[in-house]
């Protein structure tokens, strides 16, 4: 029973922490109509003008229920039998609930004696305590906390059980050819629907979400390229943003009226991509002998060097960057209709199309002689070399092709923004790209897409909870890595690696 108690203490401490930093206070100010207005793109002052400022317990209660469900799942995940799962979830959550209840009862007793708790704990106001106690007398409210939290913990444990059973059923179904085919068909239909949505939706969702979709797409591009270097070839490259910058700056210099060239976008695009690929290959040469963490540090340095060269070079505008990057012009042949690239919608279509092409190329590369030798090199470089694989060549190919796609992403980025600054290309971009491919599933192409939706899209969706969105987001990343270390959609190879290490699943499958 010790793990259950420990889990309960951790949950209780976390909840108290959340209460103290004022998540509940924030939630009380939230209303459904407010969220809806935010999604439609209204600013904070507009919302404040439209909505009365009344406190509203619905969201904080939803948050409590969610916390209880997740805590229940986490407490139950190690237990074997159903009864043990339920009981450890109930025990853990009752302890967590009791901790919160004691603190709340104590706080409300202090308030009852005219002692202002919020003098020390700014966010724990009298109304907050009352709302947290379900507007009941303190003791009854505390008891309700324990009961509600334990009950939803049990539900969480049951959900976990159901979810695992479903996963086993799915993998069993996938192992038989027939149902595997149907699963494929379902997948194709879902993919087609998603594609259709992505083609039609930009017409309706407004400027803001178009911009968000475009950013997600650009990170998909970056992720697909970095996935070749890290996921396929196993070379931990943290300077990836450098090639993104080279693509962006090349197209900016070639098309901006501040320079004598003033080429068109389509002419400058291949030059930008090739320039990035050449830079990627050249920077690959000195790091050929480095592996793992050493490689990461050196490439990190390269990425910073590229940014700083752009920042202090007057030829590239120094810290002010380059303005007026030309957008593409595109005339549909035969009907002579010119697409104006003057909003984020046409850029979204360009990015969407590019993502599909790049994903296709990455898929083909992975399922080839080259992809196989990349995997072999990732597994054991010496053994791969001893099997006749020219590891020097395929390493440079990985660096070069990764940089090629980064250059493509950078070029589109520059022309979409129409202005670029050296500080658009900080280490954080590399880290984001790395995080999204790890969260999606290293080496997995659908994983890159999902990872980028989660990592780039989620902070936008979380905007209604304002200050806490990055906290929630960071917590989500931690939970993700604990619960699904192989990523959201692991590559087939990774799935095998992790599946075979999961004895529980094997026991369930054999029964």
């Amino acid at each position, binding site marked *: 029973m010790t793990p259950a108690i420990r889990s309960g203490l951790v949950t209780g401490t976390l909840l108290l922490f959340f209460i103290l930093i004022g998540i509940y206070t924030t939630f009380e100010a939230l209303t459904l109509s407010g969220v809806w207005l935010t999604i439609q793109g209204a600013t904070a002052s507009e919302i404040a003008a439209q909505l009365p400022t009344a406190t509203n317990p619905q969201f904080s209660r939803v948050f409590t229920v969610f916390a209880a469900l997740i805590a229940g799942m986490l407490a139950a995940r190690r237990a074997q039998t159903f009864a043990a799962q339920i009981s450890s979830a109930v025990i853990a959550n009752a302890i967590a609930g009791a901790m919160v209840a004691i603190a709340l009862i104590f706080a409300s007793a202090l308030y009852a004696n005219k002692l202002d708790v919020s003098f020390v704990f700014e966010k724990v106001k009298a109304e907050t305590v009352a709302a947290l106690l379900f507007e009941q007398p303190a003791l009854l409210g505390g008891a309700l906390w324990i009961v509600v939290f334990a009950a939803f913990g049990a539900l969480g444990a049951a959900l976990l059980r159901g979810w695992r059973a479903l996963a086993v059923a799915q993998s069993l179904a996938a192992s038989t050819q027939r149902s595997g085919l149907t699963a494929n068909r379902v997948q194709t239909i879902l993919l087609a629907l998603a594609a259709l949505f992505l083609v039609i939706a930009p017409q309706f969702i407004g400027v803001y979400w178009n911009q968000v979709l475009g950013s997600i797409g650009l990170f998909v591009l970056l992720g697909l390229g970095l996935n070749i270097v890290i996921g396929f070839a196993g070379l931990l490259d943290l300077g990836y943003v450098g090639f993104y910058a080279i693509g962006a700056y090349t197209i900016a210099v070639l098309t901006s009226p501040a320079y004598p060239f003033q080429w068109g976008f389509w002419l400058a695009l291949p030059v930008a991509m090739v320039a990035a690929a050449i830079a990627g290959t050249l920077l690959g040469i000195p790091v050929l002998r480095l592996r793992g963490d050493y490689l990461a540090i050196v490439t990190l340095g390269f990425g910073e060097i590229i940014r700083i060269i752009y920042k202090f070079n007057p030829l590239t505008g120094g810290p002010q960057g380059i303005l007026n990057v030309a957008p593409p012009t595109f005339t549909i042949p035969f009907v002579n209709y010119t697409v104006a690239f003057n909003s984020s919608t046409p850029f979204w279509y360009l990015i969407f199309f590019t993502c599909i092409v790049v994903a296709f*190329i990455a898929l*083909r*590369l992975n*399922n*080839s*002689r*080259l*992809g*196989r*030798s990349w*995997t*072999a090199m990732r*597994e*054991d470089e*010496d*053994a*791969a*070399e*001893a*099997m*006749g*694989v*020219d*590891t*020097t060549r395929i390493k440079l*190919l990985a660096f070069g*092709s990764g940089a090629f796609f980064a250059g493509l992403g950078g070029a589109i980025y520059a022309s979409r923004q129409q202005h670029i600054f050296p500080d658009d290309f900080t280490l954080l971009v590399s880290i984001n790209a790395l995080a999204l491919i790890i969260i999606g599933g290293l080496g997995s192409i659908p994983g890159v897409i999902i990872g980028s939706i989660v990592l780039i899209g989620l902070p936008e969706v979380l905007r209604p909870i304002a200050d806490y969105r990055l906290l929630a987001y960071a917590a989500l990343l931690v939970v993700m890595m604990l619960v699904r270390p192989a990523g959201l959609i692991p590559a087939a*190879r990774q799935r*095998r*690696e992790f599946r*075979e290490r999961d004895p529980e699943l094997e026991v369930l499958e054999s029964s």
Partner: protein
Amino acid sequence: MATILSAKGVTKRFGGLTAVDSVDFEIEEGSIVSLIGPNGAGKTTFFNCITGYYTPEEGLIQFQGKPTVGMKMHQITSLGIARTFQNIRLFGNMTALENVMVGQHPRMKAGVIGAITHNKATREEEARVTTHGRELLRFVGLRGKENNLAKNLSYGEQRRLEIARALGTEPKLLLLDEPTAGMNPQESLAMVDFIRKVRQEMNVTILLIEHHMRVVMTISERVTVLDFGVKIAEGSPQQVQQNPRVREAYLGSSEMHI
């Protein structure tokens, strides 16, 4: 018979230590030759000089008349020298079939363009390599294990998969680094039979490093003994067995334990 590999005066130093000290060595085409010696005698270092993992400071190595010193490992593999490793080094998270397909890498042509366009030549090559990979797995007795991850195979299976992977490179000379390490006597004898079968059916010359004396004495046509990087004896198994210097190197006395 022709000489397939010859080494003259090969010397490899690590700082002040001379791991291999002007060793002369020859292998007849089609033979099975053993390299033995106490721990630290420089056997694996000599192996690594042949395969190009190390570049010897002095000396000449010729494979089928071509000098190989200074070539890279993958170039030497393409010439027709393949190896296995003392501590098995398979691509653990790849399937058995994929491992053998990586082995066939030097006998394939597809490049980046072929990979992206997936043209007819590439498709045919993939099909050929897959079929040949399955044949090799069947040959080493791993039929039905094609889609198992290499790391999940048993120890003996991993040893045989390593040989299948090396055979994928279509070698003329196969170097086996302690193929029976960690095996019991029955398994070792099965491995001896298997190595003979490989020589016969795959038409390769075999050089092996071995510690099990029983294996060395049954399988080898010639034996070379190294001690502290120096070649101290050479000849048929019987000759080597009776050589007093060999007995001394192994036991510090004139009793040799077999």
